[in-house]
């Protein structure tokens, strides 16, 4: 056991040497942004002035060739956004006539400010705004899309957590840090070493799989052999989470960073939904990985063995399945797909040392909703959680969207504690 701890420490020490990441200037996480279009075409060169509620100037920008503009905001709160109507092309006017908006900026979220443009009427009078209902459905469609995107990321991370729980009984509070690990490893290969993000992501996923393997081989496997109880193991995982989190903070710094490629992409308009190509491609990759893992679980010998171990480890062992080998494979695979989730999260948001920690409770919510220990339950549960989080912002402020998801987690446990696909068993 002492060997195990020394090996684990040495391995994490090795990470310190690996991850000597230079710090860059911090970028605020929240911003105000918008896109100006007229009859489907972007409108270039329109001046937008952002001030605080009390009128202190923040920044002036002009819309670019894609019609988009963005102003980073330091402090969340109420702001005033004014569109300079004089800079609009001659034939256009703002629908409704009001060129000022007062949006609220929430921490960590970009806030979109809408200025709808229309053809200037001959007499200069603006026609009143109509079609508020269609705007609602358009937003709903957009949020459903975003929720699906988030749900897939949660599902990737949740799959590993749920399988590890099913096979070893460990509620791994350090699983969020595995997500962060993947994102930061990809950053390390991407930015300091200058490799393109796609090979960098592949390398990061492979490294994280190796780290998952090593974690089980040298740490969790040894603890199981010593007969550590599941509650003790849970508290140990908190120790591991704290250790890794602060290691990331020391090596990566507290600032928010971004990958070198695919930072800002022009959106595509697909019916009511606007999406960046990177979003669509990452969702495709996520879906392919999830389907591949699902197929492997259903059809391959190892997958069947994994489900057998999750069902009943003692029975699986007595029918000739090498339980330790299966658990090791699950740790390797779980670490790798958690890392993939981290890279995808890093692509769609930004990189921060707490990004996985913030996702952890949502992963738990997805896993619990689907049924702890079931692989497909984790998938369904996570996608529902993702959808719920985004779609709920139709009615509640975005900063409270996670509150809704966590409240649902509590309600699920109250009424159907085994989750959607979980087996009815005594969990009280």
């Amino acid at each position: 056991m002492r060997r195990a701890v020394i090996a684990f420490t040495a391995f994490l020490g090795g990470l310190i040497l690996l991850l000597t990441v230079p710090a860059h200037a911090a970028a605020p996480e929240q911003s105000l942004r918008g896109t100006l279009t007229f009859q489907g075409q972007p409108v270039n060169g329109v001046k937008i002035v952002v001030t605080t509620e009390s009128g202190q100037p923040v920044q002036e920008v002009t819309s670019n060739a894609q019609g988009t503009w963005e102003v980073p905001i330091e402090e969340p709160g109420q702001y005033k956004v004014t569109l300079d109507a004089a800079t609009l092309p001659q034939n256009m006017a703002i629908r409704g006539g009001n060129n000022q908006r007062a949006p609220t900026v929430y921490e960590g979220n970009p806030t979109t400010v809408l200025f709808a443009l229309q053809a200037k009427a001959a007499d200069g009078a603006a026609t009143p705004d109509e079609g508020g209902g269609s705007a609602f459905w358009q937003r709903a469609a957009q949020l459903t899309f975003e929720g699906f995107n988030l749900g897939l990321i949660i599902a990737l991370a949740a799959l590993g957590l749920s399988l590890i729980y099913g096979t070893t009984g460990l509620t791994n509070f350090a699983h969020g840090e595995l997500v962060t690990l993947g994102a930061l490893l990809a950053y390390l290969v991407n930015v300091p070493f200058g490799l393109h993000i796609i090979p960098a992501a592949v390398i990061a996923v492979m490294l994280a799989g190796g780290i998952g393997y090593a974690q089980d081989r040298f740490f969790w496997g040894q603890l199981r052999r010593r007969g550590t109880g599941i509650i003790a193991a849970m508290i140990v995982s908190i120790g591991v989470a704290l250790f890794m989190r602060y290691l990331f903070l020391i090596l990566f710094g507290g600032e928010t960073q971004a990958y070198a490629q695919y930072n800002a992409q022009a959106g595509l308009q697909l019916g009511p939904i606007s999406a960046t190509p990177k979003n669509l491609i990452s969702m495709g990759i996520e879906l392919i990985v999830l389907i591949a893992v699902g197929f492997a679980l259903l059809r391959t010998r190892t997958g069947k063995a994994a489900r057998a171990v999750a069902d009943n480890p003692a029975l699986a062992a007595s029918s000739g399945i090498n339980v330790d080998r299966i658990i090791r494979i699950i740790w390797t695979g779980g670490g790798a797909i958690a890392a993939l989730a981290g890279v995808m999260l890093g692509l769609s948001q930004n990189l921060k040392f707490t990004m996985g920690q913030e996702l952890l409770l949502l992963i738990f919510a997805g896993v619990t909703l689907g049924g702890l220990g079931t692989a497909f339950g984790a998938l369904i549960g996570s996608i529902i959680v993702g959808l719920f989080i985004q779609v709920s912002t139709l009615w509640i402020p975005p900063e409270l969207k996670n509150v809704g998801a966590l409240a649902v987690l509590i309600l699920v446990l109250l009424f159907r504690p085994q989750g959607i696909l979980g087996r009815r068993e005594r969990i009280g």
Partner: protein
Amino acid sequence: MNWDIILSTTLKAAIGVETVWYALAAIGINIHFGYTGLLNFGQSAFLAVAGYGLAVTVTVIGLPFWIGIGVGLVAAVLLAFLLGIPTLRLRADYLAIVTIAAAEIVRLIFRSVEFKSVFGGSDGRRGFSQGFYEINPYAEGTYGFWPLSFNEREMWVLTVGWVLIAIACLIVFLLMKSPWGRVLKAIREDEDAVRSLGKNVFSYKMQSLILGGVLGCLGGFVYGLATGSVQPDIFGTETTFFAYTIVILGGAARVFGPVVGASIFWVLLVLVNGLLSGAVQSGVITFMDITQVGPFRFLLVGLGLILLLVYRPQGIFGDKRELAINAR
């Protein structure tokens, strides 16, 4: 390296404000986890509702200080009911997930822009401690001797804090000797056996949750009064995790375990901080800069928690047979 300051800050940490409020939080966790075997990972929420109950009552509503304390205590009891009714019938790991989720809900609501007019957003609330310092019996000046000297405000906070710790320890000591305490320990050992003896396990667990929550929430008051402010992020999940580390370090299911644990925890943190900062500034350590010293201490906390549970789960004073750690 400035040894005087390192020695003085380390000695102060042994009885300082941080030690006091973490000890109170840990005493609560000791009742939940050490005696009853409840894995409550939402302790920080109890501290938060108490601190904010006081702050909002005094600054927003404008009521006197004592009513604020009362509101904070009532809020903690209410939170215990809200947390307990859905979760206390669940297995240990589910309980852990739900309580940690509830604590996050509380924190997110306190820091939201939506309720900024009440809770003050991420800046929190300040300016509610006047009533507390108005009844300060210590005259202005410096008390104690080098290297342990405090001004009159610190003296007043520390006096109240340590009196609260003493009362809390006495309550725990007397209760755990009583038949009521034996039922709690029996629940920790085997819930079904207790149920078969005709005890209402749910009700006992709820009483334990309320008692531990109320004793723990005193830590929220102490923090708020000592710093004169409350911020949402002070009451994050890490506060709970540190308090767990303290309980396990001192020894779970021991009356003085959390107090000694808190003292040692903060002495070690402050000492490591002082030594490392000194070493970095004088150029002895070159692989780290001064901003990395802070996180490095907490990295050591994580490592310490792992090593403790692997090699000495009973902590310093605990008894291995009295641990809920191998339960389901």
